């Protein structure tokens, strides 16, 4: 049986193959990735499309949570101040209604309550990064402005709508309550009750002062209830932030298992490929130059 006398093409093919194995192993070690083009692993490449989009989204959801959280905290602390102010107004009203306060003292109490009313209006007009927090979705201008036609002396310019912010796939959190629901609700009108208290104190009627103080007290309870919405939102945002952190970890680990390399394994494969390549080269160098001519002594 005659054997193939020309080993060059076979040896060349072998060396190319082992060289290409070295290149692949080197690339994996250098880039830390086992998949760089779809043909390396079509299924993993397809899954990476989802992973990439999801990772970017989770990243942005996390930023949304942080941004929204500080907005909600601002609103929460504004309502906190309102509660403090209203508590003060209730105690002033109670003081004015005890029937022993002089008319001049009632006047100064009325002025003090008027100051509280203005401070509450200013809290109701709180803005965060240029947007008013209590105007519903109409947040580019101050929700409460002075108006002589209104019984409370202030008119609401906002609307009754709310915004929800995306903080997860299929998860959005309502981030505001309209001012109409907090400060000028028909059942417990904060601004209206304060304004009535001022008038009652100015008029000096104990009965009026008592009923106005009771209305402010009702408003105080109502605002405290509304404040709960914001603290609930804050805790929802906090727990969502934790979820998102966990999701980021999951996505990163999924990415590693799809297209990453095991460093130790990649390094081992590289050194194996290098050894195989050297062996192929050494074998070629030994075999190729040999023919019978090397051993024939030229005739004298």
């Amino acid at each position, binding site marked *: 049986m005659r054997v193939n006398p020309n080993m060059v093409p076979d040896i060349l093919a072998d060396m190319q193959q082992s060289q290409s194995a070295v290149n692949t192993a080197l690339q994996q070690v250098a880039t830390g990735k086992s998949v760089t083009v779809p*043909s*390396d692993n079509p299924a993993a490449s397809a*899954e990476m*499309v989802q992973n*990439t*989009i999801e*990772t970017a989204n989770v990243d942005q959801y996390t*930023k949304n949570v942080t941004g929204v959280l500080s907005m909600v905290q601002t609103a929460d602390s504004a309502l906190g101040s309102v509660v403090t102010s209203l508590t003060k107004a209730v105690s002033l009203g109670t003081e004015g209604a005890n029937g022993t306060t002089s008319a001049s003292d009632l006047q100064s109490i009325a002025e003090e309550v008027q100051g509280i009313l203005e401070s509450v209006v200013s809290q109701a007009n709180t803005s965060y990064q240029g947007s008013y927090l209590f105007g519903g979705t109409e947040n580019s201008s101050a929700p409460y402005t002075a108006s002589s036609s209104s019984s409370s002396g202030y008119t609401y310019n906002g609307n009754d709508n709310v915004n929800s912010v995306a903080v997860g796939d299929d998860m959005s959190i309502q981030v505001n309550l309209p001012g109409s629901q907090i400060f000028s609700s028909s059942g417990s009108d904060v601004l209206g009750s304060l304004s009535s208290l001022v008038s009652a104190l100015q008029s000096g009627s104990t009965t009026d002062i008592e009923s106005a103080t009771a209305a402010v007290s009702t408003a105080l309870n109502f605002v405290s209830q509304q404040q709960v919405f914001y603290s609930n939102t804050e805790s929802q945002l906090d727990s969502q932030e934790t979820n998102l952190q966990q999701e980021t970890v999951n996505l990163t680990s999924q990415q590693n298992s799809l297209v990453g390399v095991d460093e130790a394994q990649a390094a081992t494969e590289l050194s194996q490929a290098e050894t195989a390549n050297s062996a192929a080269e050494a074998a070629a160098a030994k075999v190729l130059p040999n023919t*019978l*001519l090397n051993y024939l002594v030229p005739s004298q």
Partner: protein
Amino acid sequence: MPDLIAMGGLNTSLLIGLEALNVSQSALDATSNNIANSDTAGYTREVPQITENPETVSGNTVTGGGVSLNDLESVRDELLNLQIQQQTSAQSSADTESSALDQIQTYFPTSSSSSSGNDIASALSNFSSSLTQLSASPSSTTAQEGVISSGQDLAKAFNTAANGLTTVQSGMNTKVTQTVAQINSLTQQIAKLNGQLSQLTAAGQDGGTVEDQLDEDVQQLSKLTGISITQSSDGEVITTGNGTALVMGNKSYSLQTTTGSDGTQHVLDSNGNDITSTLQGGQLGGAIQIRDQVIPGYLTSLNTLASDFASAFNAAQAEGYDSNGNVGEDFFSVPSSGAAVGITVSITDPSEIAISSDGSAGSNGNVANLSAALTNELSSGETPSQTYSDLVYQVGDDASNASTQSTAIGQNITRLTDQQSAVSGVSIDEETTNLIRYQTAYEAAARIVSTIQQLGQVTINMVS
């Protein structure tokens, strides 16, 4: 009488010696030609066919008649050649497809979340997160501009991928024209060699160099397109895989190319029939497969995705109000054909994004609808990103299959070539051994001649 017999015997020996010299000389010629061509592509080793001459019978004495050289015979295995040609066609087709798909898949890179590439996956993810950002900051001009610019990037990513596919497609189109020209010049040459070979065969001679060249040319031809070969009395008959004649005996039939109604180059046989869709194998078959099947398939997916997604997003725009309180206008504009290559963002003013659901500037109510266009199912029943990952999978799978196929066929060819080389290849060791054999034989034959010459001298001296 004894002298006469002796003289006759000496002449016979002299003639035998001379013939032996000639045969050794020819065998040395064949050996040196083999050595000279040991690295020539397509060369088939030649072996001298040496036979003994008829013996002469004189009474009871039988005398050998010496030696003569019949022929130098090329050692070839036609069946192996045929198998190699078939595998070469298949490999060349797979190689053409593989290299085109390698180019194509650079437009569909495996994305990673850290990359900010301009491929569709990265662009989709940036667009998606810009909308998510808008949800938290609906009034921020920066967030609004982010949506416009990432929308433009997404449109550009579609444009780039579609243009990339079209570029590869037109490259394949050029390859069709070039390959047909190469096929025509080869078939002419093959027909000429076929004519020469049939003359040699008719004269009872070995094909030798002509057949080597013919085999080499047919091998080249099989690289260009899939062929089928039969033998006729006029030599080889070569047709394309589906039977279109390329060479019959000493006649060749040129293929032609013409621009078809679809703008691509179509291949016609010598009678003007369009045979484009029947061509398989070789560079030509591979190029046509990529140009007419693979790329149009990808482009259709890409166009459907671009057009469906744009409609869904525009519909979401129309559900809300822009910052000026108007109903949202189309965000993307897509041409009716070639959606992926032609998609653009039609609005430039950030205030035209339909963010609001109630007409007030501070509402973000419609952002959820805009975002949902990215995650809702399109008419295909899949979300935009699922549709795109399907395409990435398809491209990757096609590229990986073509390359695997090419490697597998390559191993077949290596095995077949080994076998062919074992039959037809020149072995330096063997030729060196032959060189020694024929040299020794030549020296011995020369010794016969000089011995007879001395004997003749002795005889002449006896007479004088």
